């Protein structure tokens, strides 16, 4: 059977599975729709969080980026895992105990202010929307490369699938589908990595092959011979300060992403929230400790397959021809010596490899069976769809729950709330699909900044809301606006305004760290200069800190106190 036939079969089977789960977990009430009825076991929520979190970018692009950056690629590995420690220790247990449906819920109630709620809603929608457009695009790319359908058709198929289980099952449907998607994506990721580790080092466990084999030493030698920096040499592409700031921004941003935080509302109690953060990181770590191994193997393998090889021999490779068609791999024999050379100098380099093809091409480079290639495509789809569904629910609940129910019609009936929720999911899907088909030029650039914005807006005021009783609404609003404002200003001026990175040369990806610190300082200082929060809010914080599981008696805060 051909790769296309296998891919079609696998994709159809996986979609039927998702639809079945979606139908099976359909819900009627708003608690089920927004937080899966608080009924998801810790380990299942861990798997769902892992799938929710690992996007098309984690699956397809990260290993390629690291392959290109060497040590400096560690920013993604540490940045996208370290945030879970922050989540587990500082955020998840308290937000779960608080027990509402969304992040703006916490912000609005803790800071007794609809202004704070609206700022949080806008930040949540902006972060999620930029992120989801990238996922729909990823779905389209997989469809076009592996099934030869136009990208637009791929995006529409993806929209229908996500739409079905998200509209019917809400958070419950999404959760259980994500558990299945985690299973598919991790198997799809590991099989080629294990095969490559086995072929190159004789050790099938990627983490062991990475650590104990001599492939690191060999790769360093090759890199130096070709004129590159050693693969393991730190700060070859970015300064130490930049690496530090980007890592922190990614960590804090991860902990502040609304679609990740909201997953911890779905577990039964505080204890489960702590453990499920652990399970989530364990499931993520399986992929994230394999990825650097894949990066190293793939780079070694690509260089030895392509560098200094005769043109005729390279052109005979089947996968080379296929990827050349997608323009993600290209050759140019500039010095006319009949061989292709890889060099660090743009003027003499003859092999151009796009980061995105490292993972997707690995099974072909390693000459694995067609069904493995099909499995990788199915895994990439699972990664993109699971993340998209989580983001869509955040967009929907921000509007249907935070704006409509909490601010416009607090008397809405259960069935009406769920109906509005379903309708908003549909609306969010259509919007995401539109951006997937017509990607605005800036989407790819903006996705990376979603982290900086999440870091500079949510993280500080949630932390202070729990750990500092004295923080009040004036402080929180001023903090969020200054953190967000500064970060947006810096990113826009450097990325779009053409200014050079004007603050210690920090790149826009890392500026969220500064925005976060600014938010902390402003919130703290303004809170001290203005009256303390009302007594009942202080009691609410006291309640969050108690060893008991009961959610704080929120009904005691009557609407009169909301401005």
């Amino acid at each position, binding site marked *: 059977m051909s790769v296309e036939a296998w891919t079609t079969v696998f994709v159809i089977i996986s979609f039927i599975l998702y639809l079945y789960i979606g139908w099976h977990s359909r819900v009627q009430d708003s608690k089920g729709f927004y937080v899966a009825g608080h009924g998801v076991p810790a380990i299942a929520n861990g798997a769902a969080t892992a799938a929710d979190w690992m996007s098309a970018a984690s699956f397809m692009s990260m290993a390629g980026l690291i392959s290109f950056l060497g040590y400096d690629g560690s920013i993604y590995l*540490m940045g996208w895992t370290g945030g879970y420690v922050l989540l587990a*220790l500082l955020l998840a247990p308290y937000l779960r105990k608080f027990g509402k449906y969304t992040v703006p819920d916490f912000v609005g109630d803790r800071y007794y202010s609809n202004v704070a709620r609206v700022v949080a809603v806008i930040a949540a929608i902006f972060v999620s929307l930029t992120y989801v457009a990238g996922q729909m695009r990823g779905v389209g790319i997989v469809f076009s490369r592996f099934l030869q359908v136009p990208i637009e058709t791929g995006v529409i198929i993806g929209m229908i699938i996500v739409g079905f289980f998200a509209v019917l099952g809400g958070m419950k449907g999404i959760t259980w589908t994500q558990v299945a998607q985690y299973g598919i994506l991790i198997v799809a990721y590991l099989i080629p990595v294990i095969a490559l580790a086995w072929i190159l080092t004789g050790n099938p466990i990627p983490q062991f092959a990475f650590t104990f084999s001599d492939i690191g030493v060999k790769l360093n030698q090759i890199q130096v011979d070709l004129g590159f920096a050693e693969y393991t040499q730190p700060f070859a592409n970015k300064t*130490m300060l930049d690496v530090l700031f980007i890592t922190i921004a990614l960590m804090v941003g991860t902990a502040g992403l609304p679609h990740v935080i909201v997953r911890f509302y779905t577990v039964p109690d505080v204890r489960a929230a702590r453990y499920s953060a652990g399970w989530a990181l364990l499931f993520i770590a399986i992929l994230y400790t394999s990825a650097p191994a894949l990066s190293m193997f793939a780079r070694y393998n690509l260089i030895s397959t392509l560098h200094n090889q005769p043109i005729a021999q390279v052109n005979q490779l089947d996968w080379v021809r296929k990827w050349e068609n997608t323009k993600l791999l290209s050759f140019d024999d500039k010095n006319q010596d009949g061989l292709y050379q890889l060099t660090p100098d743009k003027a003499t380099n003859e092999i151009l490899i796009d980061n995105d093809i490292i993972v997707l091409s690995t099974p072909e480079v390693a000459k694995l069976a067609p069904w493995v290639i099909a499995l990788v495509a199915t895994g990439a789809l699972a990664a993109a769809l699971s993340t998209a569904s989580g983001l869509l629910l955040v967009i929907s609940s921000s509007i249907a729950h935070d704006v409509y129910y909490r601010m416009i019609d607090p008397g809405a009936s259960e069935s009406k709330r769920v109906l509005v929720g379903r309708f908003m999911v549909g609306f969010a899907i259509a919007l995401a699909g539109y951006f997937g088909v017509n990607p605005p030029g800036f989407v790819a650039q903006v996705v990376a900044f979603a982290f900086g914005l999440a870091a500079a807006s949510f993280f500080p005021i949630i932390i202070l809301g729990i750990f500092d009783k004295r923080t009040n609404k004036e402080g929180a609003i001023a903090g969020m606006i200054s953190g967000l404002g500064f970060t947006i200003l810096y990113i826009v001026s450097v990325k779009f305004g053409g200014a050079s990175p004007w603050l210690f040369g920090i790149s826009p990806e890392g500026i969220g760290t500064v925005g976060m610190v600014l938010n902390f300082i402003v919130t703290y200082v303004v809170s001290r200069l203005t009256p303390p929060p009302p007594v009942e809010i202080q009691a609410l914080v006291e309640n969050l*800190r108690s*060893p008991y599981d009961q959610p704080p008696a929120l009904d005691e805060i009557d609407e009169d106190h909301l401005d």
Partner: protein
Amino acid sequence: MNQAPDEHRAYWKANTTLIRNLMLIWAIASLGCSILFVELLNKIQFFGVPFGFWMAQQGTIYIFVILIFVYATQMDKLDKKYRGK
């Protein structure tokens, strides 16, 4: 909520102390060993790769996972102690 506020305060104090200690390890592993002192640690060869590099791409992630489970189990103990069951 029938326990004395003192008990709550002691629970919260124990919790924040635990958080502080674990966050310290978090920072030393990720920001310290893997970034600020990576060049120093790279002078040590750890099997096939330099140690600082290994920490940044493998070790730190394992430490993160362990930290969360340590926190969860330690909090179980604190919960048990202060809930007075």
